[in-house]
């Protein structure tokens, strides 16, 4: 796996982006989705994922729903209206960041 520190600042944006593409998701599902999309390159640990989810929930960007699934309770997260707006903003910020990095690292490929 690549240096996970490089992804740290983008974790909330990754979570918001995934939730914007799904109606609702639970923690483990998010880790598995990220693992599959990055072909195992990025593995989000529980210690990083859940505090981020709770922070987003506290900021009013996510809403929670608890349901009983397979003998246990499962906490689903979904975007609030504020969260949907914030996702667009965060994605735009991240794209700008990637473009800036690109122009620094590989000026020939920059756009």
């Amino acid at each position, binding site marked *: 796996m690549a240096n996970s520190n490089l992804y740290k600042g983008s974790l909330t944006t990754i979570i918001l982006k995934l939730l914007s593409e799904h109606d609702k998701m*639970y*923690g*483990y*599902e998010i880790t*598995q989705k990220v693992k599959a999309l990055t072909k195992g390159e990025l593995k989000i*640990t*529980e*210690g*990083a*994922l*859940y*505090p981020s989810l*709770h*922070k987003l929930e*506290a900021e009013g960007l996510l809403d*929670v*729903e*608890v*349901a*009983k*699934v*397979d*003998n*246990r*309770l*499962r*906490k689903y997260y979904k975007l609030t209206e504020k969260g949907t707006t914030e996702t667009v903003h965060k994605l735009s910020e991240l794209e700008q960041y990637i473009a800036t990095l690109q122009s620094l690292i590989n000026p020939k490929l920059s756009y």
Partner: protein
Amino acid sequence: MALSTENIHFIETYLKKSGVVFMDIRLEMVDHVASEIETRVNDGDCRDFYFIFKDYMVENKRHLLKRSDGYYKIADKSNLKALFKKATSVFGIVSLLGLGFLLLTVRSYLEPDVTHTILKYAPMIILILFGCIYFVFTKIKKERFSLLERIGFYFAILFHIVNMVYSSYNSSQSLESSPGLAIMFFTTVILWIFLLIVINTFQLRSFYFSKYKHAL
């Protein structure tokens, strides 16, 4: 393959004994661990549940318990934000003015020594009120919830401020005249913050009741 009720209960008890005391945090961790064990079984791990669980914990216990500690900061910040929002709302401003008016009216009707006696015992009265609210209303059916229990942090801060201010006030005041406007203003603000915390406590209770009704 889904884990049995006994397996889920085993994971939950293990996490509870490892210090994950808040139900809202624990249920999510139980689901995470159970989901991972189920994935391993579905991927071909034929060993007994306990061996897979043990391996998972050896690899991930540090990460799992780390998040439990970090949540205090998020919970405190979230509670503070909710209190601030209430304080700056129309209700917040009207209740502050109403309390101030009420206390000034009471002060003008009571004899100075009676008012001084009330202020003398104010820290004890407020501590008893805090205790009642904290121990009776911050648990739901013996289960502890993170945001609800962390309200106690603000009760503790408030109590220390109350204790400090009233102690120094009581040791320096003459009993002949009515309490000054400064202490009356302080009392109003303290009662107002207390009111906001109590309202927040009940709102959180109702939030947890509605969101976690399956678990209670």
